[in-house]
């Protein structure tokens, strides 16, 4: 496979990585590791299969490895049950000012599914393939993730917060 074909996907890999990792530097690290791995393993790509889904699958593996090596960072190791209880009615208590900080508070596995489906518009089947999990798991993570994100941003409307995003 021609690496130029991989290069065509860089902008979308960067978009996904930015949303997944938060800041630009960490996101581009993720993209770079993904590209290097993809180029080294390009003989493993099956011609005719979806290159983008394959690249997302590689990025997922890189991301998971990064999380493992960074277990010390609490926001990365966050367990859903360890999240503070959110009281939807008590907006004053919420410090979630925008979508990105809300995203960062989601468990990474929910964040991945929300982004693959909601931002990258993968089907459940494609997301299941990219993440190496059953479709049912994709759906349950998506449903729980979206609901948690909704609760996190209640009281801090998304639209004004978007002005912060440059």
């Amino acid at each position: 496979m021609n690496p130029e074909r991989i290069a065509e996907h860089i902008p979308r890999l960067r978009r996904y990585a930015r949303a997944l990792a938060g800041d630009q530097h960490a996101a581009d690290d993720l993209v770079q590791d993904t590209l290097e791995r993809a180029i080294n393993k390009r003989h493993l790509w099956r011609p005719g299969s979806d290159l983008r889904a394959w690249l997302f699958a590689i990025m997922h593996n890189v991301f998971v490895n990064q999380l493992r090596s960074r277990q010390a960072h609490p926001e990365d190791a966050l367990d859903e049950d360890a999240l503070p209880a959110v009281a939807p009615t008590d907006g004053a208590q919420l410090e979630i000012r925008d979508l990105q900080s809300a995203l960062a508070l989601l468990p990474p596995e929910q964040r991945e599914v929300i982004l693959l489906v909601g931002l990258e518009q993968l089907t459940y089947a494609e997301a299941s393939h990219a993440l190496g999990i059953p479709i049912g798991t994709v759906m349950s993570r998506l449903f729980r993730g979206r609901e948690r994100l909704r609760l996190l941003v209640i009281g801090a409307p998304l639209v004004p917060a978007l002005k912060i995003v440059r």
Partner: protein
Amino acid sequence: MKPSDNELHAYVDDRLDPESRRAVEAHLAQAPEDAARVAAYREQNAALHAAFDPVLDEPVPDRLRHVGATRRAGRVAVAAGWLALGAAIGWFANAFLTDRPHALVSFSRQAALAHAVYSPEVRHPVEVGAAEQEHLVNWLSKRVGAKLRAPVLTAEGSELVGGRLLPGEGGAVAQFMYQDGKGKRLTLYVSRLAGKQRDTAFRFSQEDKVSVFYWIDGTLGYALSGELPKADLLGVATAVYKQINP
């Protein structure tokens, strides 16, 4: 009937057929809590796009665009495989297209790769042989989109073997091949360059065993490659340059 979570989320992502969509909408019209939930999920998607779509328009940083380039450079002369050729040319062509400082370096690498791939070829070193030189030059000129010449290197001890057409940035690239009495080969790689270019002096690069002199002349980029000592190759490059600019 109350839609399942599955249907509600499929509605959020616009993945329902029209009939199911109408059914969900009919339900939402009379179920304010579900409607608020669905509206919030749709807002999440819209907000994600608003926040992150601008990334798509950012210029891709160099360090991402050139992934794979440095590693491959060391293998240039060994990488006689078609795969490496296609891969690297495509990759470097991309750099050539978008990034001036790297452009010439990539150009010389493409030339070195093309040399490494075709010069050892015994049975099919060229597509059109020197016997049909007029046809060869006209054909390559037409495809490259510029008037080309095949320099005569007899005085330098080499004769034209022929030439071939290669894929390159923005179109076709011509490769002329020469051979000396001992069978040692030189290739001249000629590519039409996009946009306005400034003429350059000779530049030299060493890609493993392959030495390359390359320069820009008008709208064309030239690269002369061979497994020769630098000084010898420079002599030939000078002869090529003089013939093109008499």
